[in-house]
């Protein structure tokens, strides 16, 4: 039973289903109750599930994650919202030193089924601290799992799977795609959470991306097709773990790889992918793995973000450079 819905609505429906299915699931964050969140992702949930399950919290991110850890220790499965990417840092300590390590410190006797939702990325003309992509800062931390859906269906199902996970999951939501609609089949059987998907098959080069950049890469592939080039687009979906097997399989076919993300290129997930794929596919590669992403500069003011973010031409430029080898 497929239904067309926006990505934000798909997450809303997924949260609703989780709240309905498991009394231990609680949703918490700033303005998630009556307002339904600043992006309305939690719209109507408090009305239907009550204030004890959809909790408006004090404005304190460390407190949100820290109390979620305590609730998890008590047997709950909290889904917490950080209002914007740039506001997660007060909670960074709790996420890195406590949430990520608790299971290991307890020698496996404690589980941390906490989902941290973070609307991330730019392209919406926002003010400072509202457009960042900090996923690499979390991917470096063992104990965390990191995912980012690119479309409504994945948003729905990956949220279901993240909530069911006994590990902490940082769920990066591509905020510029919140209003993009897609088919969601709520009776489908989803694939594994951390597996990549080939969303477009091609033979000349692989574009690997996740979250907001998948749609861009599909547009790039369309444009390249008009010039007679066949690009494969791989939606990674998961940043920790990364499905290197899928990247490898694709690169063994296409022999060229360009990784695209909004986050700064320097020490970004693209760097890790480039290093690993170079190791795995050294004799298959016809060109070095190239990366397209943000610059080593603070996220710029909104009037400059189009120059900072990867766009069609910048990715095509990288494609040309790769194919020139």
């Amino acid at each position, binding site marked *: 039973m497929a239904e067309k819905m926006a990505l934000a609505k798909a997450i809303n429906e997924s949260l609703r289903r989780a709240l309905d299915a498991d009394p231990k699931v*609680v949703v918490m964050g700033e303005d998630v109750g009556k307002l339904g969140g600043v992006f309305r992702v939690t719209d109507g949930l408090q009305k239907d599930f*009550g*204030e*004890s399950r959809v*909790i408006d*919290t*004090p404005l*304190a991110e*460390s*407190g949100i*994650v*820290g*109390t*979620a*850890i*305590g*609730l*998890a*220790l*008590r*047997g*709950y499965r909290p889904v917490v919202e950080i209002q914007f990417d740039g506001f997660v840092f*007060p909670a960074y*300590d*709790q996420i890195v*030193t*406590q949430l990520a*390590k*608790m*299971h*290991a*410190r*307890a*020698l*496996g*006797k*404690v*589980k*941390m089924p906490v989902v941290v939702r973070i609307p991330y990325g730019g392209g919406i003309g926002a003010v400072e601290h509202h457009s960042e992509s900090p996923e690499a800062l979390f991917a470096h931390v*063992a*104990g965390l*799992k990191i995912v980012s859906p690119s479309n409504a269906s994945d948003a729905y199902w990956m949220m279901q799977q993240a909530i069911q*996970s*006994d*590990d902490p999951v940082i769920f990066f939501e591509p905020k510029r795609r919140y209003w993009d609609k897609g088919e969601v089949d709520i009776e489908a059987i989803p694939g594994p959470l*951390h597996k990549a998907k080939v969303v477009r098959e091609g033979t000349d080069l692989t574009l690997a991306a996740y979250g907001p950049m998948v749609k861009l890469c599909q547009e790039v592939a369309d444009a390249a097709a008009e010039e007679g080039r066949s690009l494969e687009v791989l939606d990674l979906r998961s940043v*920790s*773990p*990364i*499905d*290197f*097997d899928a990247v490898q399989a694709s690169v063994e076919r296409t022999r060229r790889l360009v990784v695209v993300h909004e986050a700064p290129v320097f020490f970004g997930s693209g760097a890790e992918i480039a290093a690993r794929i170079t190791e795995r596919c050294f004799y298959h590669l016809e060109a070095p793995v190239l990366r397209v992403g943000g610059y080593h500069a603070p996220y710029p003011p909104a009037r400059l973000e189009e120059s900072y973010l990867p766009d069609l031409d910048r990715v095509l430029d990288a494609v040309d450079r790769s194919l020139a080898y």
Partner: protein
Amino acid sequence: MTVESTAARTPRRSAGNKAGTTGTKRTTSTAKKAAGAGKSAEPALVQLLTPEGKRVKNAEFDKYVADVTAEDLRGLYRDMVLTRRFDAEATALQRQGELGLWASLLGQEAAQIGSGRALRDDDYVFPTYREHGVAWCRGVDPTNLLGMFRGVNNGGWDPNSNNFHLYTIVIGSQTLHATGYAMGITKDGADSAVIAYFGDGASSQGDVAEAFTFSAVYNAPVVFFCQNNQWAISEPTEKQSRVPLYQRAQGYGFPGVRVDGNDVLANLAVTKWALERARAGEGPTLVEAFTYRMGAHTTSDDPTRYRTDDERLAWEAKDPILRLRRYLEAVNHADEGFFAELETESEALGKRVREAVRAMPDPDHFAIFENVYADGHALVDEERAQFAAYQASFADEDGGK
């Protein structure tokens, strides 16, 4: 009481009417006096046993220890003596190279045993890394505490088997976990309570402030038990606060009380009171146990660089164990046989701990990769396999070691 209620309930009794307390609803004359007195004299604290071992009456808190028998008192004494003995053994084991580090609780036995013995089995404890006395009260095997200090694990016990969470080294983090856990108790409709331990240094951490805020807003059944041992490594409490720490509670809308941290009976009474408030749906309480860290911060610390012997001597006169012994002897609650037997038990404990630590094996190399995730992770699997292959590459040279 559900989380729907965002306003703290009115306390059943105005906590502000007691000496050394601040109330939730209004600034009482006592609290004003206490705050104003900060410059000239320390505010009053709840004390039931003087340093000389004399039992003093306290109209507010006597009732919380009214049922304490002579046997109970001997039990408290035994707990403190054995905890101190264990602690001394651990310090010695560090000096002998058996432990990498030890954080001694010397001087804080009354605060920990008094509060620890106020708890029910179904209550939950969130400790710092110095709560060896509380761990003792919870029934955690003392040798389990030593694993992390020896470097064989990062927390060697199952938190749920004694409702005693793992030691937390990042200062103040656990106060938020305690608050979240307490919020869960409320949701479950249970009448258990949570106690969060922290110190004077931690009182400056943002997480502690946020824990106060969250617990007050959700009226969470949590007792914040601050052992003000006067020193955060080398920094005195004046570097953390302009007001006595218990007064911090007032700004958050719940009561705070200062108790003589070296008086085990007073700590028992005040913690029982705070736990009862929590169980009755009256929300959080801040207890400031005014005590003294008689040893170094840890075995890596050198307190001679920042404090004087005079100060230590003054506090030694207020020793928590000595004062209870004086009381037990004065009222004939314990005879020489009791003390002699305890001395034997104490030495046996030291021996048991010593032998257990020396026999504690290093973990298997592959423990690095264990329990990183509950549901597994492809990269961990890959790196474990690489590590195994690397280890196996030595097999021919030294027999697979």
